[in-house]
Structures are given as structure tokens and as C-alpha cells.
């Protein structure tokens, strides 16, 4: 059993990820993630101090296109796919608590 993770840490991570976990799910997630981090400890022995990180596999430079108008997605079609819309906008519950 690993001591790399505690349920408190997993609960905090779940809050950051906007996921609710039941107490059982929290325990299971803690066990499974600890187990994975144990497996991942194989890299601890590598000396990586002088290695540059590689973010993307292909050397790419930023590309700019000419600033010309192009067709965009159809607004009605996009809004029709949303759970709730109103007056041409996405509708969401209150962002700051209180009365809507």
C-alpha cells in the first residue's frame, strides 16, 4: 500500500475537477491512484535534470492567416444542441449565489 496519496488529497483533486465522489468511490480512487503512482515510481531513479521537456512531437511554429472573413458555425444550430438557451445565448444557473 502506497503512502503517496491520502483521501484528503484525492478529495481536493476531485473538487478541482468538478467531480463528486461518494465515500466508497473516494476510498477506491485513493487505492487505485496510489497503486498507479507506485507503478510510475520506475522513473524516480532517472536523472532528468539536464533533459529539456518535449511538449509536442512535431516542431511547429505558430501560423497566422490573413484577416479575412470566413463562414462560422450556424448560431441557431449550435444553440439547438445546448441543454438550454434563451434569446440567442446559452442559459446557465446563477454564477453568484442568490436569487436568479
Amino acid at each position, binding site marked *: 500500500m502506497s503512502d503517496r*496519496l491520502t483521501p484528503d*488529497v*484525492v478529495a481536493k*483533486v*476531485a473538487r*478541482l*475537477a*468538478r*467531480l*463528486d465522489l461518494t465515500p466508497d468511490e473516494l476510498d477506491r*480512487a485513493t487505492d*487505485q*491512484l496510489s*497503486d*498507479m503512482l507506485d*507503478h*510510475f515510481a*520506475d*522513473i524516480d531513479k*532517472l536523472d*532528468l535534470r539536464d*533533459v*529539456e*521537456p*518535449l*511538449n*509536442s*512531437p*512535431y516542431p*511547429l511554429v*505558430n*501560423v497566422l*492567416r490573413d484577416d479575412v472573413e470566413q463562414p462560422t*458555425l*450556424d448560431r441557431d*444550430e*449550435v444553440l*439547438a*444542441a*445546448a*441543454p*438550454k438557451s434563451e434569446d440567442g445565448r*446559452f442559459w*446557465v*444557473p*446563477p*454564477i*453568484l*449565489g442568490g436569487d436568479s
Partner: protein
Amino acid sequence: MSEYPTALQIAEGVRSGDLKAVDVVEQHLTTIADTDGEIHAFNHVMADEARERAAAVDATVAAGGDPGPMAGVPVALKDNMCTRGVPTTCSSKILAGWLPPYDATVVQRLTAAGAVFVGKTNLDEFAMGSSTENSAFGPTRNPLDTERVPGGSSGGSAAAVAAGFAPVSLGSDTGGSIRQPAALCGVVGVKPTYGRVSRLGLIAFGSSLDQIGPFTHTVADAALTLETICGHDPGDSTSIPEPAPEFSAVLDRGVDGLRIGRITDLPEGADPDVVARTDEAFAALESAGATIVDVEVPAFTYGLTAYYLIAPAEASSNLARFDGVRYGLRVDGADVEEMMRNTRTAGFGDEVKRRILLGTYALSAGYYDAYYGKALKIRRLMAEDFAAAYQQCDVLLTPSSPSVAFPFGSKTDDPFAMYLCDTYTIPANLTGDPAMSVPFGDGADDLPVGVQIIAPSLGESVMLQVAAELERSAP
């Protein structure tokens, strides 16, 4: 080789007028209707759209026009590629019922080439898995043994080709999700160089790793499909500007004079039957005139760890967009944050949640350097080790999967056991190199074994050249 007509045969027949696209499509829809109840390759069959589209292809031929190099070829699409007005679910409850407002670039290109889409195929939810058991809509069965998995995450696409539902399907490959199911279903599966195929309209999992590619029965059909879907797309900022070469031109060249790399420090874990077939593949290439060269790729061993930190990290960021605001499921709450938590908690399955948690942890303050940062450094080592190996050889050959198709439930209790399925396929995603699986004989229980060819960046031609030789010499 297969009992089913190839894409090349169908396209040639339809273009010449010897075959009617509507008949071809009807035959495939009948096969689907007869057997997909058991296989469950499809989340959604596009029967009406396919019939309409096939009629349009025939009309073009009748009017003296050319519908394109894939005229009338039925194609199945992994259900993480956007199809305008057609359900696209990622096999997740969080996208159930969503109708995309646009077509993925691959969909546009295949349409322009005359292909006919027959449906959207099942996958592990958001392409996270190696067995298609993580689908919210139930697993896909392997057509060669319905008690076993088809592999994953593109299990539905692999099964669709193996079962004769379509001669061509598209999958996506983030850590092996095309090559591993291709091996388990006995078909050809190709992951092109990162950036060869536009990702516009592919619902993102690991953006620096994801790549779309084909499943086919033959190497020639894979080359034909690649010629259609590869090429620059201004809508994908990681799309490679170089035009794709004519891949079909190299298939008859043989392997005389080519150097095939054998990785001497490859991680262990492949079953004896898989090792034996891979050894025979080396021998076959050697008798066809290739030279076998021993090479070392020390970082290969650390690929799994690097991948299972990088891919979940990217996924945790990509999947933040599923918040109940713009598309798919919404479960209401008192305020917007509660709505988002309720929606994501109800909409995502266990494996997706596991990876979001792992990725969020690997990126979080205090752990970033220890996990994600280190993983990116291993990615650099991987690229350097492969570059050194390519100094000595033209391509590398390994097993595609450590085992043949395994029974349902045999790895579902231990997430890490499932992750080990990707041991041999992951490095090519980290480096971006092209890689493919080609069937090479049978292993345990008469189930197919696939061998993997890995080539340097943009080296699809030499990779396909070697694959064609293995196809000719397969037992």
C-alpha cells in the same frame, strides 16, 4: 486475407459502372442488420444517409462523372468524429443525443472522395481503454470469438471491418487505440505521423498524442484511405504542411536492402505465441532480402509511465469542456458550479473519472514537476532514443499487443493490467512517429497476432512497403 470485397475492388467497380453503389451499400447494411445485434460494433447505423449518398454516387457515374477514388466504399466512423446532424457520443452519457453542427475534416475528405458512411462505431468512453468494455452503451464483441474483447479503444471500428460491415473504418490512436484492436481483430490498422491527418472534428482526448487512421483488410486499402485523409488542413494548427505522397506506389517494391530494427531492450511481457509470430515476421523479411539490425531504445521501458501521466493530464484539461453549458447532458443545480459537478458526476464513467483525477493530480500545484514535468522529459529521451535507432535501421518491428484477444472481464478489476496492453504501442504516440499493425499468423486459440512496424516521422511509405511484404509472406 479476407473473404470480403476490398475498398479498391468496390471503388473500381463503381467508377466503371460494373457495380452500383446502392447495391454495395445494401449488402453491407444487410450484414449489419443480420449480425450487429450480437457484435455491437455500431452505436448508430446511418442507413438512410448511406442509401441516399450511394444513390448520389451512382448518379454521378451515370452522368459521366467520377465520384472519386473511394467511390461507393462503405466506411464506418469511430463515434468520436463529428458528423453534422448525426449523433456523436464518444460512447459517453455526457454526449448522448448531441448533434454536431459540423463535419470533421476526415468526414469532408472521405465524402469528397466518394465514400459512403454506414455508421458510428462503439469505443471505450472518450477513447480511454483497451477493450471497449468502458463504453457507456455496452461492450463490442470480437467477431472472431464473441466471448472476447475486440481491443480498444477503437474496438467498434476494428470489429466493423473484421465482421464485414465495411471494408474501411476510421479509428483514433492516442496510445495504441488503432493498432491494438487491429491486432486483436486480425485486420490492418495504421496510426499516421502526428499531424498527417487533421484532428479538426475529432473530439480531443490527448491533443499532443491523438491521431486518426484507418482499419482495413489489406495494406493497399489502408494506403488508399491514407491518400484520401492525409494532407494539410488550415483548421488544425498542428497539421503538417507537407503534402502526403502517393502511398500506393510503394507497395510492390519489396524489402530488398531495407534494414529492420529489432529492439533488444524491449520491455518483457509479450506472450510466447506473440513472440514466436514476431520472430517469424523478422525471418520472413530477412528471406525477402532485408537485413535485421539489433538496436537499443532504453527509454521504451519508461513509455508507459510517461504516457499515463501525459495523456490523463491532457484529458483532464480537454474534458473540462463537458460542463453542461454548451452541449450534451445537463443535470441542474442551485448554481452554475453545482450544475457542472452534477452533470460531470452523472455523465462520465469510472475510467474517465479515474483519468481526470490522475491528470488533475499530475498537473496540480506541488506535483507538476514530480509527475507531468518528468513525463515530458522522458518524452524527450524517447524521441532521442528513437532518432538514434533510426541511424541504424529504416523501420522497427515489435509485437502490436502483448497478447491475442482476451476474455471479457479479465482485466476490468485492475486498471494497470489494462494499461499494460499499450506497452508496445505507446512510444510512437510520444514521438509522433507513424506506426501500424499488420496481421501475421495466429497465436493462442487460433486467434490472430499483429506485428507492429514503427517508422521515422513522415515515413509512412517505407512502413507500408514493409507491411505489404509481411502481408504477402504471412502464414
